[in-house]
């Protein structure tokens, strides 16, 4: 049976009350435009990773995003995410932001390509309206500009 996270979130909520998952007002569905081997893939990671010269995420409730070049050295990436769940990622960002893994799949022809940039944002924000009405559309525009056929959203 898969490990359950909601009971832990509820137990740890304290006086703020439990953090409750929120469903989107509608679930988008777009047909896949072709076989995987023809698709250009983008990564969206909620790890809050950024380049050191990019503005820090202001808080866990920051609904901004950062643009990360596909070839930016992983060793130079930093995060403002304060979660203690998953400190391994700080030693190897690939486990929540698999740019090198994606590049390898491109090289072997499993997917058609990777976008020249990928994107990160802060996970766990309670600002659901801003996520749906601002962050989501902004990232959609970025994905179009990057030529993405498929976006992989990765939780952290």
């Amino acid at each position, binding site marked *: 049976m*898969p*490990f*359950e*996270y*909601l009971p*832990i*979130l509820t*137990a*740890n*909520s*304290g006086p703020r009350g439990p953090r409750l*998952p*929120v*469903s*989107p007002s509608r*679930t*988008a*569905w*777009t047909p*896949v435009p072709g*076989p*995987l081997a023809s698709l250009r*893939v983008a990564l969206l990671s909620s790890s809050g990773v950024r380049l050191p010269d990019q503005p820090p995420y202001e808080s866990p409730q920051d609904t901004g995003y950062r643009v990360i070049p596909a070839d930016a050295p992983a060793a130079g990436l930093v995060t403002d995410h*304060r*979660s*203690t*769940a*998953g*400190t*391994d*990622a700080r*030693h*190897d960002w*690939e*486990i*929540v932001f*698999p740019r*090198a*893994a*994606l590049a*390898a*799949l491109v090289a072997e022809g*499993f*997917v058609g390509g990777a976008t020249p940039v990928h994107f990160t944002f802060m996970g766990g924000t309670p600002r659901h309206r801003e996520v749906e009405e601002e962050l989501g559309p902004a990232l959609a525009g970025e994905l179009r500009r990057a030529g993405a056929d*498929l976006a*992989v*959203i*990765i*939780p*952290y």
Partner: protein
Amino acid sequence: MRDIMERTPAPRAVFIDFPVGRTFGRRGDPDQQRRTLRDALAELPHFTGPNQIRDLPHQWASADRSWEQMVQDEMTSYGRR
């Protein structure tokens, strides 16, 4: 994470029962990371509509579920901040 995924429908969702914060596997294991991403993407043609979750069979450590206590400890530590 599957319990959260069930309450937050996505166009297409793939679940792997790895500890939170380690979605694509262990640090320093690029083969596992590539294999996990590959298997997740391979599910794409099997979705027939939105709000579906497809489960990957990968296990973090075979029948050893001791990682669950590690995750609980990590999350409890974060929640106390």
